């Protein structure tokens, strides 16, 4: 069974087609990256998976059921969600933030406490040091780690990431990307990951879906993507080429 399936999904808002006949199947255990420029419809597509947005036409099937057939509360509690702004609750401690979905699911206090400690350790935040802190006492990277731990808390099979590392400095971003890869190795979750950064897409994705103005332009593994000749793909790869060339020139200017 596919984990998530978009079936001819279109979404219009204010006369604009945000998504246009978008069809895509996400396989269990893979990390599907939705890559595209701003306004390509990536975030809208992502938000349809946990029922924050519903399609104008077409349907989204999550684990065999359309999002309209799911009990929305149940659907959302079974999906982890990480966004760029993190959205930690400022009035709750790190531990309380991480434990929020288990609490909504009425886990026992001991089970929540144990799970919280385990997760904070997994994202390299020592529980003794960080559990009692408030979000404002954390750096951007630490906050995003808490965001990831919170998304993992209730053991969802599916995780959604909306440009989670976009606002971080390059060094922290790389750390978190590596942590993402390590966690994926260990946990085997299905992930849908939105980004506009082609390097991030190539590094993290098992498959890359390139969106352009609401349409699926290319669907390829990172290797295939690098060899692809589609105009939009070339556009993204040109960015990469330019960066590589810039790096190649640097040592020459020093000699």
């Amino acid at each position, binding site marked *: 069974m596919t984990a998530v399936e978009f079936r001819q999904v279109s979404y219009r808002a204010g006369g604009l087609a945000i998504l246009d006949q978008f069809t895509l199947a996400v396989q269990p255990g893979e990390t599907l990256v939705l890559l595209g420029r701003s306004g390509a419809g990536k975030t809208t597509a992502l938000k349809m998976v*946990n029922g*924050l947005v519903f399609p104008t036409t077409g349907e989204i099937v999550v684990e065999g059921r359309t999002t309209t057939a799911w009990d*929305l*509360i*149940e*659907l*959302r*509690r*079974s*999906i982890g*969600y990480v*966004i760029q*702004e*993190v*959205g*930690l*609750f*400022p*009035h709750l401690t790190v531990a309380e933030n991480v434990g*929020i*979905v288990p609490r*909504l699911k009425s886990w026992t206090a001991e089970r929540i406490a144990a799970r919280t400690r385990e997760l904070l350790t997994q994202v390299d935040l020592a529980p003794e040091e960080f559990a009692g802190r*408030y979000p404002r006492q954390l750096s951007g990277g630490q906050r995003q780690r808490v965001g990831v731990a*919170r998304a993992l808390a209730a053991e969802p099979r599916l995780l959604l990431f909306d440009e989670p590392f976009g606002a971080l400095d390059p060094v922290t971003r790389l750390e978190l990307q590596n942590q993402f890869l390590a966690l994926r190795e260990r946990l085997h979750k299905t992930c849908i990951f939105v980004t506009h950064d082609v390097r991030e897409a190539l590094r993290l994705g098992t498959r890359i879906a390139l969106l352009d103005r609401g349409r699926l332009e290319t669907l390829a593994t990172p290797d295939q993507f690098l060899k692809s000749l589609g105009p939009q793909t070339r556009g993204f790869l040109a960015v990469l080429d330019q960066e590589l060339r810039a790096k190649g020139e640097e040592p020459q200017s020093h000699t």
Partner: protein
Amino acid sequence: MNRSGLWGDILSLTAEHFVLVVVSMAIAVAIGLPTGILLTRKAPLRGWVLGFANVMQTIPSLALFGFLIPIPFIGGIGKRTAIVALVLYALLPILRNTLVGILGVDPAVRESAVAMGMTGRQLLFQVELPLAVRTILAGIRVATVTTIGTATIAAAIGAGGLGVFIFRGIASVDTTQILAGAIPAALLALISDGGLGWIEKRFSAV
């Protein structure tokens, strides 16, 4: 009037004043808080309700008490009319601060809460109200202090309270009587302001 009589009157009228304010504020909060929450959900209603509360505030208080006297059921002479007027005055700051406090919650926080599967009720009680509580309390504090002052005028329509001293003092050109009404009212306002301000600060975790 002898001295011990004056002190006794001050005490009993202060108590009467206090009760008038507490009852009015309890009703104003009971109406204003849920209405404010409703307005965060129903944007089209905002203009109308806030407009109404605004107009109530602009009516001079003495005139508002006067307007209410001929109205059946809520009007007439006495405490009931005074409480209706005081509630109408107190509504605006409570409504507005509830609305502003809840709408001021970071959209990313609200979206996270919804995406994690919170029901509307959980979103309100676990996220929105805790984050808006300081703003809401500030509105209640402002409303309380204003109500303590306005309630002195309620004596003009027979509602009692410290205004009795003030009106009596004005009529008999007796500064002692005016001060006997004004000073306790001012103290009451200061103490309420301080006390509610202290409670507000206890919610400083946010």
